[in-house]
């Protein structure tokens, strides 16, 4: 199929079934349309003023019941066998945990690295375990021909072998709210050496050099602040839309007055400003927001990241 690359081991199989049904369908469509048109011309009232009441024909009825049934069953079997392949994960597949939430993806590798795009080694099988933190999402990489729903309370999986270097789109296919359409990410396939250099290296998120424009799709946008919060797991406890979770929502808190308990349990009023937010993130145990458990962990991050977080929380007013 020329429209999209066949960039995984599954792609060829899916396309083969598709093509098989497409050709048969086209044959029958052309045949039926041609017959209809031919009859309309041949038996037009001008040419054929008297119709003939043919009531039916048992053999024909039998034929056009049996033949389509056989064809349909072939289609079914072909679709089924190739699907079975897509469900049988090879033993040596690397297991990556995918988490979907409104409205971003995050990926966790076996060694604990977290990313907001999916970096893959070419020709190495991968198994994705899909988790959702809120509603149902759909994990779809068109170029790989894989798709699986991401259902809360249930871990689904999918697997594939990426066979082509490049950057491919990850899209969410199940309506999950206002930003469903922009719940995108990139799957970046690089040679094994490059992958391992990153995997065993120091860098946390996918380094920029991998996200350089590669065929066929343009490079992904730089990580947004929300994506950063997702990657650092902040959104596991904080919503950005006002609903309370383990921790208070981050929406609309900036500029308000808040009540906190300090280390000795004394209550005190604070102004939620840059400084406070910074303290809350860097040293969460120092001041605990009233009504919430002292559950927030300390998170390692760069100054740049901290600055972006504070900016973002300020912007959520």
């Amino acid at each position, binding site marked *: 199929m020329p429209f999209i690359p066949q960039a995984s081991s599954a792609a060829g199989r899916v396309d083969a079934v598709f093509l098989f049904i497409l050709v048969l369908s086209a044959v029958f469509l052309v045949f039926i349309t041609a017959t209809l048109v031919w009859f309309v011309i041949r*038996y037009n009232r001008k040419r054929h003023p008297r119709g003939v*009441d043919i009531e039916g024909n048992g053999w024909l009825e039998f034929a056009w019941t049996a033949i389509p049934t056989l064809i349909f069953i072939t289609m079914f079997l072909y679709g089924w066998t190739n699907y079975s392949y897509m469900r049988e994960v090879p033993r040596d597949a690397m297991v990556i945990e995918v988490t979907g939430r409104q409205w971003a993806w995050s990926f966790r590798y076996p060694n604990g690295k977290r990313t907001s795009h999916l970096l893959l080694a070419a020709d190495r099988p991968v198994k994705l375990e899909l988790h959702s933190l809120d509603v149902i999402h759909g994990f779809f990489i068109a170029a790989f021909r894989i798709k699986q729903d991401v259902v809360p309370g249930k871990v689904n999986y999918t697997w594939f072998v990426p066979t082509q270097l490049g950057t491919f789109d990850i899209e969410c296919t199940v309506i999950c709210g206002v930003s469903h359409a922009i719940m995108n990410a990139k799957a970046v396939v690089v040679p094994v050496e490059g992958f391992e250099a990153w995997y065993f290296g120091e860098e946390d998120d996918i380094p920029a050099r991998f996200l350089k424009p590669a065929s066929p799709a343009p490079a992904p946008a730089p990580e947004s602040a929300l994506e950063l919060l997702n990657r650092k797991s902040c959104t596991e406890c904080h919503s950005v839309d006002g609903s309370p979770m383990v921790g208070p929502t981050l929406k609309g808190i900036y500029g308000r007055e808040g009540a906190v308990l300090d280390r000795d349990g004394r209550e005190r009023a604070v102004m939620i400003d840059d400084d406070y937010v910074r303290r809350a993130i860097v040293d969460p145990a120092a001041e605990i927001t009233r009504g919430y458990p002292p559950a927030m962990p300390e998170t390692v991050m760069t100054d740049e990241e901290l600055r972006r977080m504070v900016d973002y929380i300020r912007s959520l007013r």
Partner: protein
Amino acid sequence: MSSYLDTGGRGGIAGWIFSTDHKRIGILYLATMTGLFFVAVVIGVLMRVEQLVLDPPLFAPQVYNAFFTVHGVIMIFMFVLPGLGAVFGNFFLPIMIGARDVSFPRLNLMSWYAFVAGTVIVFVSLFTGDGAPDTGWTFYVPFSVRTGTNVTLGLTGVFMLGFSSILTGLNFITTIHRLRAPGMTWHRMPLFAWSLYGTAWVQLLATPIVGITLLLVIAERVFGIGVFDPAKGGDPILYQHLFWTYSHPAVYIMILPAMGAITEILPTFAHRTVFGYKAIAYSSMAIAFLGSLVWGHHMFTSGMSEQANLLFSLFTFLVAVPSAIKVFNWTSTLYKGSIEVRPPMLYALTFVFLFAIGGLTGLMQGALAVNVHLHDTYFIVGHFHYVMFGGTGVAFFAALLYWFPKMFGRTYNERVANLAWAPIFVGFNLLYFGMLVLGYMGMPRRYFTHLPQYHTGHVIASVGSFILAAGLVLFFANLVVALLRGKRAESNPWGGVTLEWRIGSPPPAENFDVIPEIQGRPYRFNPEVSE
């Protein structure tokens, strides 16, 4: 004898909305449904405009989400589901089987009221509360439980619409069992009636299941009852099971009466009997039955067990067999006919073509491996517009053209009707074939925007929608003019032979002076010629 259109005692509106005459109720449905159709159609075109103007989006994302939800809910629950059954079924079923009315005329009126009530509730839900529902017409939990929009009221409206559908089904089954004219055995019944019979059973037996499912979602939102909520141990996939247990059979509620109407039109204009009467009649029943066993094909990627996927895929292919049988019999019905391509016939032939494309794309989706790729993309959107608009919608137009002179006693301009066909056909295929290609490329559905690689496809589809719009405006303008200024119609303008063509146009209030005695099979156009 005076026609049903003459307001006997009660005049004005009251004579209509309190009338229990099946013909008037059919017209009531026609009027309400056409109005709703236009609302939804305008929203459809607005969605096409949104896909043209991307940056900044013309409508906010939240608005777009409300658009496709409302468009889907109106089109499905208020247009194609009542569809040909509520309009032409109500109007012609009793006439075709030689009865004076349906079995329960008052219940019939009540079901129209339920329809209107449901519609009003849905529309109220759009403008009150915290905004119009944004879940899509499928209302998947847990999103439909969590979203802040006015889903509770919307679901209540849909529940009412389901109630209306059940009452109609109940009425039709009883009518067909009890009120056939003397001599009208099952095998002498017109095939439109057969298709309504199959449909009615689906309406009756499938609708309650979605009813209870939607009630549970409402209970979930209002009382936190928690039957589907994963946080409380519920299983969101069970919701999908129950939803599709109804909503797949529902697609056959949409298509069966359409197929029935086509089966009336083809023999009339081929001027010969229908080929394979029994095959067509029984395939309607087979579709109704097998159709209840395939719902899982909407859930192949949901994480359902592989065993279930296997069964559902197999059944999906089996349910396509009776549809194929119908297509082949329709084609053969033209063989050695004496064919006249007048507007109803033109649209009926178009139906066969478009439905075949829709059905064949359905086969692609039914194949497991392929479905993984196509699910929830524009390919699906293309498929169901082909079957629902190209199928049910076009059949609705064909039936309207066929029975219009009978229902209103006026003729329309046949030239204009043929002329309108061209933009409809061209625009339709640009629009929806474009969607099929987009879907194959990986364009997900329910997106207010799209990635750059899909833009060309979207432009083509949008242009198609504008052409289609032009055609439809012409089509309906023609009928409106005919209503107001059309010439008087004869009682049998096409040379049809089923019972409705033996009474006046418009039909008298009591349908028949004397209930006719039925002698032989329907569709005997050339009794003296035989082969």
